[in-house]
């Protein structure tokens, strides 16, 4: 279970490439039809270098090219069976486009308890950047972990 001692902890950076095939699969699964994601021409007409990622895709990308995408949960002692996603925030500068390699650096911003310790909240801040492009976006995920004995 994460504790206040984890605040400030960082994790090994992960890098993932925005690959056209899996990007198109994401569009298909979510029923995305917006031409700026579907068409190179429309994306360029909108001022992008290529097809940009949809607004939540950065969250996905962080999980894609690492052998153990949930390793950070193990490091924090979180059992995925007790985990829920409480909040998610994105602050954008410019979206990565197909072909970009994006690096994610994550640190624990806060850990606190609610409901007498039945729930532990962990706030993780991630900076997404790419070589030559600088910072692309910041992500903040708030996770909530149910204490096992609190599980009915």
């Amino acid at each position, binding site marked *: 279970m994460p504790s206040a001692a984890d605040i400030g902890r960082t994790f090994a950076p992960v890098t993932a490439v925005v690959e056209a095939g899996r990007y198109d699969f994401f569009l298909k699964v979510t029923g995305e039809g*917006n031409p700026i994601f579907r068409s190179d021409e429309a994306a360029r007409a909108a001022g992008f270098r290529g097809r940009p990622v949809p607004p939540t895709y950065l969250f996905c990308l962080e999980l894609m090219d690492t052998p153990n995408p949930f390793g950070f949960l193990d490091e924090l002692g979180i059992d995925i069976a*007790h985990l829920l996603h409480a909040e998610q*925030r994105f602050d954008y500068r410019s979206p990565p486009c197909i072909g970009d390699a994006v690096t994610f650096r994550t640190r624990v911003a806060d850990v606190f308890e609610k409901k007498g310790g039945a729930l532990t909240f962990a706030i993780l801040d991630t900076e997404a950047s790419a070589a030559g492009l600088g910072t692309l976006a910041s992500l903040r995920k708030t996770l909530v972990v149910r204490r096992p004995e609190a599980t009915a």
Partner: protein
Amino acid sequence: MTPAGDPAARPAPAVGDVVVDKRFPPLTRATLALYAGASGDHNPMHIDTDFARAAGFPDVFAQGMLAMAYLGQALTDAVPLAALIGFSTRFAAITQLGDALECRGELVEIAPESDGRRVARIALTARDGAGELKLGGEALVDATLWEAVRGKA
């Protein structure tokens, strides 16, 4: 081809306008499984009923980020991606199998920033067919850029 949500095709938005409005199909087990593959989020909670039951849930349920992807899609149908500055949600309730999410966004404020830009704030919700709030959140949009894109049309 003009998309249904082409931002340039609509009149200039005003505070109080519902600028985001899109309904999605009912969620199926197949969608959750395919989203797990497409998103890189292989958490078994959303694709393995045995795992979900062992964790104390009656069945698998939707990835929060799938619901947020729908809300984001509704948002970028209405607002040019290049003008999107921020997007946040809180997951108010679990999105269940069969839920058809209705995503809406109301323009609640256009405020000047110290750097000279004007920033529009859109209050966002995703509700199931019964009206229960699943996601609440907001988007921050560069209103100056939004209007410039509109003006090019």
